[in-house]
C-alpha cells in the first residue's frame, strides 16, 4: 500500500469535511446556540491536521485497485469519526457510540436515528446532520477527484470503490471532468429542490435540510414526524419527485443534456426502475385503501410517497406505515432490498444488478432445453462480459451472506424477529426506517452499543458495496527478509 498517498488523501478528506462544517458554524453563530464553540474548534482542528497531510509530496502517484479500496474504506471511517465530533463535543448526543452511529447513518445516507426528540437539537447540529447526507450521497472522494488534480488518471480506482453500481462509466474522457459534471448535476438538482420546497411553503432552513436529505437519498428531517409534520400534498409531491430523480442513474442526465432526452429514456434500467415503482404503488394503494375509508386518492398519496421513499432508500415517512397490512409491509421490505439505480445516490442491491441476474437466469433456463446455445446477457444493446456477470452474482450472494450474519449478531439481544430482520435490511440497504419497534416513528436508541457498532458496519458495507470494507478485514501476510 502506498501509505504516503493514503495519508495525503485522508488529509484532503479532513479538509473537505471541515469546509462543509462551516455553514453549520455560521448558523449556530447567528442563532447563538450552544453548539457554536464546537463548530468553531472542530473544523479548525481538522484543518490543522488535514492541511499538512494534504501537502505531502507523493512520489509514486499510481493507485492500484487495492490502494483504491483501502483509501476509500479508510476515508469513510475517518470521515465518520471526525463527523461525529460535533455531536459528541457539543453535548447534543451524550454517548460517543451514538454520535458515531448517527454520523455513519448520515454519511451512508441511511437516515436511521437514535434521537428521541429531534426538534430539541440546535439548528447548526441539525444542519450538519443533513449535510452529511449530501456529502455521502455522491461521495467525498469523487469530490476530491473533481477539485484536486492529485491522482492523475489512476484515480479511477477510487471512483470504482466509491460509486455504487457494477461498473464505473466515464462521462467524458477526463476523470476529473467526469467527477465535476457529476457534482454539477447533483448541486443543480439540489438547489432546484430547495427552490421548489421554498415555493411550496417551507422555510429556507427547512427547505435546505430536506433538499440535502433527499439529494443523498438519506432521510434525516428536522421534525419528529418527518415529512408527515407538514401534511402538505404539494411538499409530498415535490419530495417524491426529487427522491425519484436522485434514485436515477446520473449518466442518464448526462446523456439527456448532451445528446437527447429520447435516447436517455431508452435506458433499460430507467424503464425497469420506473415500472417497479408504478406497479408497487398500484398494489399498495389497493391493499391499504380500506385504512382510508376506501378513498383512493388518499391511499395513492401515501402509497406513492412511501414506495418511492423506500425504493430509493431515502426513508422519509409521511405516515406510519408500520400500521399497514402485511402485504404492503412485505412489498416495502422487498423494495428496500432492490434499491435504486447504479451510479445514483441510493442504496440497495441496485436495479441493474437484478436485471443482469434475471437475464442470466433466463439464459440458464434456455441452456436446459438447448445445452449448446450461445447467448450473452446484454443491457441497452451492449453485451455484458462474463466477468461483470460473475461479480454481480457474487455481490448478490455476499449481500445475502452479510444479511444472515448481521441478523445473527443482532439476535443476541432478544427482540422480535421482524424488528431485527428489518433493521438489518434497512441498514445494509441504507434506507432508514424498519418495522415494528424500529418503524418510521420510532428510533434505534434502545439497541445496545455492540449492536450499534454492528449496525454502523452494516451501513458502511451497504454504502461502499461490501468489498472495500470486507477488504480491510482480510488478513494479509507480507514476505520480508529479516
Amino acid at each position, binding site marked *: 500500500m502506498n501509505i504516503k498517498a493514503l495519508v495525503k488523501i485522508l488529509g484532503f478528506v479532513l479538509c473537505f469535511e471541515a469546509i462543509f462544517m462551516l455553514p453549520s458554524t455560521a448558523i449556530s453563530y447567528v442563532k447563538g446556540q450552544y453548539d457554536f464553540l464546537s463548530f468553531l474548534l472542530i473544523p479548525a482542528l481538522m484543518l490543522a491536521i488535514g492541511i499538512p497531510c494534504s501537502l505531502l509530496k507523493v512520489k509514486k502517484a499510481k493507485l492500484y485497485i487495492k490502494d483504491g479500496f483501502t483509501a476509500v474504506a479508510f476515508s469513510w471511517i475517518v470521515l465518520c469519526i471526525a463527523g461525529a465530533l460535533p455531536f459528541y463535543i457539543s453535548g447534543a448526543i451524550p454517548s460517543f457510540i451514538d454520535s458515531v452511529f448517527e454520523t455513519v447513518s448520515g454519511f451512508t445516507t441511511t437516515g436511521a436515528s437514535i434521537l428521541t426528540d429531534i426538534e430539541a437539537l440546535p439548528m447548526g447540529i441539525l444542519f450538519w446532520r443533513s449535510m452529511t447526507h449530501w456529502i455521502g450521497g455522491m461521495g467525498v472522494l469523487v469530490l476530491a477527484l473533481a477539485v484536486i488534480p492529485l491522482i492523475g*488518471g*489512476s484515480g*479511477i*480506482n477510487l471512483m470504482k470503490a466509491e460509486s455504487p453500481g457494477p461498473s464505473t462509466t*466515464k462521462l*467524458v*474522457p*477526463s*476523470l*476529473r471532468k467526469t467527477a465535476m459534471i457529476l457534482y454539477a448535476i447533483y448541486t443543480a438538482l439540489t438547489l432546484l429542490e430547495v427552490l421548489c420546497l421554498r415555493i411550496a411553503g417551507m422555510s429556507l432552513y427547512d427547505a435546505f435540510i430536506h433538499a440535502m436529505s433527499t439529494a443523498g437519498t438519506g432521510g434525516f428531517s428536522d421534525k419528529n414526524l418527518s415529512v408527515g409534520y407538514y401534511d402538505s400534498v404539494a411538499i409530498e409531491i415535490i419530495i417524491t419527485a426529487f427522491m425519484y430523480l436522485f434514485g436515477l442513474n446520473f449518466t442518464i442526465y448526462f446523456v439527456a443534456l448532451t445528446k437527447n432526452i429520447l435516447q436517455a429514456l431508452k435506458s433499460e434500467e430507467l424503464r425497469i426502475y420506473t415500472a417497479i415503482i408504478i406497479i408497487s404503488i398500484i398494489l399498495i394503494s389497493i391493499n391499504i385503501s380500506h385504512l382510508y375509508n376506501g378513498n383512493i386518492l388518499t391511499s395513492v398519496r401515501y402509497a406513492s410517497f412511501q414506495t418511492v421513499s423506500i425504493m430509493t432508500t431515502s426513508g422519509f415517512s409521511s405516515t406510519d406505515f408500520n400500521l399497514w397490512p402485511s402485504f404492503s409491509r412485505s412489498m416495502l421490505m422487498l423494495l428496500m432490498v432492490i434499491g435504486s439505480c447504479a451510479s445514483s445516490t441510493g442504496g440497495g442491491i441496485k436495479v441493474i444488478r437484478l436485471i443482469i441476474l434475471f437475464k442470466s437466469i433466463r439464459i440458464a433456463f434456455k441452456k436446459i432445453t438447448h445445452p449448446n446455445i450461445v447467448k450473452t446477457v446484454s443491457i441497452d444493446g*451492449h453485451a455484458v*462480459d462474463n466477468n461483470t456477470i460473475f461479480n454481480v452474482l457474487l455481490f448478490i450472494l455476499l449481500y445475502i451472506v452479510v444479511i444472515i450474519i448481521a441478523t445473527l449478531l443482532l439476535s443476541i439481544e432478544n427482540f422480535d424477529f421482524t424488528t431485527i430482520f428489518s433493521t438489518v435490511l434497512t441498514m445494509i440497504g441504507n434506507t432508514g426506517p424498519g418495522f415494528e419497534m424500529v418503524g418510521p416513528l420510532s428510533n434505534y436508541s434502545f439497541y445496545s452499543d455492540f449492536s450499534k457498532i454492528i449496525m454502523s458496519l452494516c451501513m458502511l458495507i451497504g454504502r461502499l458495496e461490501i468489498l472495500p470494507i470486507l477488504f480491510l478485514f482480510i488478513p494479509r501476510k507480507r514476505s520480508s527478509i529479516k
Partner: protein
Amino acid sequence: MKIIIIGDGKVGSTLASVLSKEDNDITIIDKNANVLNQTNDDLDVICIEGSGLNIKTLHEAKVKESDLVIAVTNQDEINMICCLYAKRMGAKYTIARIRDPEHSEEIKALMEELELNQIINPEYTAADHISRLVLWPTFSDIELFADNKVLLTKYKIDDCSSLIGKSLTDITEFDRANILVAAIERNYETIIPKGDFIFKKDDYIYIIGEVHSINMFLQQRNKRYNKLNDVMIIGGGRISIYLAQILLKNKIKVKIIEQNPDKCIHLNQILPDAMIINGDGTDYDFLLSENMNSTGAFIALMGHDEANIIACLIAKNSGAVKTIAKVTRIKGLNLIKDIGVDSIVSPKLLTANHILRFARNLKVKEDPSINELYMMNENKMQALEFSVEHAYDFLDIPLKDLKIKKNVLIAVIVRNNKIIIPRGDDCIKLNDRIIIITSLLKIINLTEIF
C-alpha cells in the same frame, strides 16, 4: 482537441497515453473488451467497444465533432475505410496506418483518393531510423533537426572518461567543440544541467550540435567507428524489407536470416540483391558460421523482444561492431542499454512521435511552427524545433535578459544555415529556427517558453 483512435494496440495505446496528457478529449474504439478495460483504467480516455467500420459505433464516438481520427488497427484496408467513413461523417483530419509494402508505391494516389491527411507506417519509420544508425555508426541514438544539420545524440560516460567528477563549467571541451550538453540521464531521471552539475560514472549525456562537430568530438574520445560495409538482419518482417531496400540503395551488403522457408523465398523475390539465409536467429553456432563475429552491424528484428535482446548480446560478445535490437515493450528500455545492446528501436514510440507532432501542429493551426519533435527518455523530456516566423516581442533581446521558464533550455539557434550554440549574449532573430529541450511536456508554442 477531440481525437478518436481506432485500434487499441501497441501504437494506439501509446498514442492515447501521450495525447491524453495534453488536454485532448480522447475516444478509443476497439473490438477487444479486455484491452479496453485496461486502457480505460490507466488513462483519461473514453473507450467504446465496437468496430471502426460500424457507422453506429462511429456515431457513438461523435466522429462528426472530432478534429482528428487516427486509424491504427492491424489491417491496412480497415484503416483506410475507417478514415474514409470518418472524413465523410465530418472529421476534420484523418491519419491511417498503412504499412504493407505492397501499398507503398501507390501511397500518394491512395492519400488523395481517401482524402487522408497523413499516413503512418511504423515499419518504414523504424527502418528509416535504423538505416541512419547503420549509415552513421558512431552514434547510438540519432535525432536530426534543421534539415539533418543538427544532431541530438546520447553518449555514455564510462569508467575511464576524463569527465567524471568534473562540473559542467570546468569542462572546456564542449565549448571548444561547439556542442552543448542538453540533458543528462541519471538513474532513469532526466536532468537539464546547470553550470555546477557534476558528472558521474554511468551518466548518459545528451549532446546537441552540428553533425560534423559531434563527429569530431567523439573521434577525439576514440568513439568513432569506420563506415560499416555489411549488416546482418535477423528476422524477415516488414521492417527488414524496408531496411534492406534502403541499405542496398546505399551500397551496403545485406544478409537476412529468417526461419520460415516460405518467407525466405518471398524475401528473395522482392530483394534479389540481398543474401537470404534460412535458419534460427538465436542459434549461436549457426550465427557464427554465418560470420556474425565480423559483421558490421547486427540488427535483430524478430517478433519477440527477448529473442532480439539475447541475439544482440550474443553478437556483441562475439565481436559485432554495432548491435541494434527492436523492442516493443517500451518500459525498461534503459535497463537493456545497460547490459550492452548499442541501440534500441521501438517502432511504436517512433510512430507516436510522428503523430504527436502532427497533432500538436493542428492545435496551433493559426501558427503551426513545430518542425520537429522528439520524445526523450520514455517520454519524460522533449526536444522541439520551432521556426520563428512572426515578429514576437522576445526577438533581438539577449537571452540572459529574457525570463525563460525553469526546465527549458534553448539549445541551438539555426540562422542562415549556420548553427549557433547560444550563449547569454546571443539573441533570437526573425526567420531563425530554434531547438529547445524541455521537461515541460505541454509546451506546443514558442511563446510558452517564456
